[in-house]
């Protein structure tokens, strides 16, 4: 009798438990969720801004829309205050990954200081610095809501290896940590400096940046990987833009898929004993042809200071630090 009652009691608890959890799920769907839609609510227009002019006549301008309707972001295409107004209430956290391996730790100071001044001001930011020498990373004071994590990784003798391993490291890092900590993630090169504001205009599902060396060049001359055996092979008739490997990003889930796929392609090449012409940049470009980015950054967001600034690029925001590459890569 006692046993039966116990069994009945437990069975009853089981029933109550499951019915409560099912009920909870339904109620959850009814409860008014504070609706903050995808990226474009503007509940109170506090800032007055000029009306967009539909019938424009602009002579020297960049292309502002890709053929698959992704905006190409450059100065003049967007209103920074309006975007700030739209994105600020969303309480987003932006992550940045940089790799400072070997002598590249020297660049971290300037990178972080310039990021403090120009990168996503007013947002929560997580810098992830991957390095083989955590002690060499300087302590740079960061503003409120901005954090730094130093993540030790293994160094390699060849700089190409270090470069290619980035895809694997980033995808693993997202899976382990970053997916819980950030909404958007940018993967940037460390030997660069922010020179002008980099804000929410760069946020998107999957974001690529146009390489400063090839924006005015026909696709035949893009330094794609041209050997058929490589997983990064691009035919002569293919290609939209040549994207730079130094800047890419997007929603953290999308960046995960992207870096993982690139890493798989790099492994496939390794198995075939081949290394793509421009390492992971070749694989990145291959992937962006078949998985088009939802937003493209103009060369303002990835510039080479050794080049003369053309009139069509109004505001250089992120550019290379003049350096002696031979010393660095030894």
């Amino acid at each position, binding site marked *: 009798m006692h046993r039966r009652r116990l069994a009945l009691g*437990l069975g009853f608890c*089981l029933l109550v438990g499951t019915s409560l959890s099912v009920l909870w799920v339904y109620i959850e769907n009814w409860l008014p969720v504070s609706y903050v839609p*995808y990226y*474009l609510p503007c509940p109170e227009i506090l800032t007055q801004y000029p009306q*967009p002019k539909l*019938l424009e006549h602009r002579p020297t301008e960049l292309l502002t829309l890709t053929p698959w309707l992704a905006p190409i972001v450059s100065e003049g295409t967007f209103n920074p205050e309006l975007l700030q107004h739209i994105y600020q209430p969303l309480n987003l956290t932006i992550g940045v990954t940089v790799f400072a391996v070997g002598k590249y730790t020297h660049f971290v100071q300037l990178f972080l200081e310039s990021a403090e001044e120009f990168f996503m001001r007013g947002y929560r930011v997580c810098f992830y610095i991957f390095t083989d020498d955590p002690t060499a990373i300087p302590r740079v004071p960061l503003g409120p809501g901005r954090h730094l994590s130093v993540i030790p990784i293994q160094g390699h003798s060849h700089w190409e290896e270090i470069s290619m391993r980035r895809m694997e490291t980033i995808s693993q890092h997202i899976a382990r940590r970053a997916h819980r900590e950030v*909404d958007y993630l940018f993967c940037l090169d460390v030997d660069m400096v922010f020179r002008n504001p980099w804000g929410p205009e760069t946020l998107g599902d999957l974001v690529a940046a146009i390489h400063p060396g090839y924006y005015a060049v026909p696709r035949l001359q893009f330094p794609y990987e041209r050997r058929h055996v490589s997983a990064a092979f691009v035919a002569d008739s293919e290609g939209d833009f040549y994207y730079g490997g130094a800047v890419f990003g997007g929603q953290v889930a999308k960046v*995960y898929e992207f870096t993982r796929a690139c890493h798989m392609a790099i492994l496939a090449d390794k198995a075939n004993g081949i290394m793509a012409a421009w390492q992971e940049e070749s694989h990145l470009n291959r992937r962006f042809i078949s998985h088009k980015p939802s937003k493209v950054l103009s060369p303002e967001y990835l510039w080479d200071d050794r080049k003369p600034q053309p009139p069509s690029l109004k505001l250089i925001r992120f550019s290379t630090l003049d350096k002696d590459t031979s010393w660095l890569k030894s």
Partner: protein
Amino acid sequence: KPKCYSLLAIILLTMLILVFFSSGLLSPRSQTPGSPEVGARVKELDHLQVVTLSRMVYPQPKVLTPCRKDVLVVTPWLAPIIWEGTFNIGILNEQFRLQNATIGLTVFAIKKYVVFLKLFLETAEKHFMVGHRVTYYVFTDRPADVPRVALGAGRRLVVLTVGTYARWQDVSMRRMQAISDFSERRFRHEVDYLVCADVDMQFDDHVGVEILSPLFGTLHPGFYGSSREAFTYERRPRSQAYISRDEGDFYYMGAFFGGSVQEVTRLSKACHQAMMVDQANGIEAVWHDESHLNKYLLYHKPTKVLSPEYMWDKQLLGWPAVMKKLRYVAVPKNHQEIRNR
């Protein structure tokens, strides 16, 4: 005694399994990466699944050559403005086909407006989302008068009977209520995108997946060159649709808007509620549901804006050079005769 223990163990085990099962399966939100709120919403609106495009051959886009020099193609909040020449339909068709996107087209044919259905549907068959799955939702008070139009593969027509109103202004405004009701009840299970169109129109040229995005509005053909002070927004502060003279991006037309089912549900609900508030306060916005649509789109910026190519009247406006194509155009009608019968 052993029987008792095994029974206990089985019950406990089942409880554990059910708890894990329910928490894992029934609350998918907990698995979304990123902060729970943004992650969930982002996932909801994230229609771009991982689609791998096949090899395509098309001319290279040129960074130093804008696609259109005569018009604005990106809004200040970085939403594309769709004009002919801005998009490559081959790439877009493939992207949306790979997602197996289904598009719902809602149209209201109340009272005498049923006469417009035949031309609307026939031209839609020729030009609207060809090659994709389409469901026409025809709202009418005269289901028997809905014409039989031959539909292509993957396309179907659903007739939804609704009540009618005496005043044409009410017929127009109550569309928002019908759309929001049916969106929640039905559309969200059947289609991915909703396009809400006026019936007294015809499709003269391609209207395809280039318009699809979470939320889109169409520029009114009469105001695309005007300054915001001249927009016929509702200017009385008492109305929910009030917009002051120093505000406003564009004047959107109430006859063609849409987006993902979720966003259209939100829009139509918000507009309907605003109209009810106005009704309770004894005021009716100057351009009815269009005024409320404009208010909504001012504060919830659309993710794509369609140029007036997607909403034109050849009789009134001719064919200016800036319009390379006239895709969705008004059918000439006698307003007096058709409206209040």
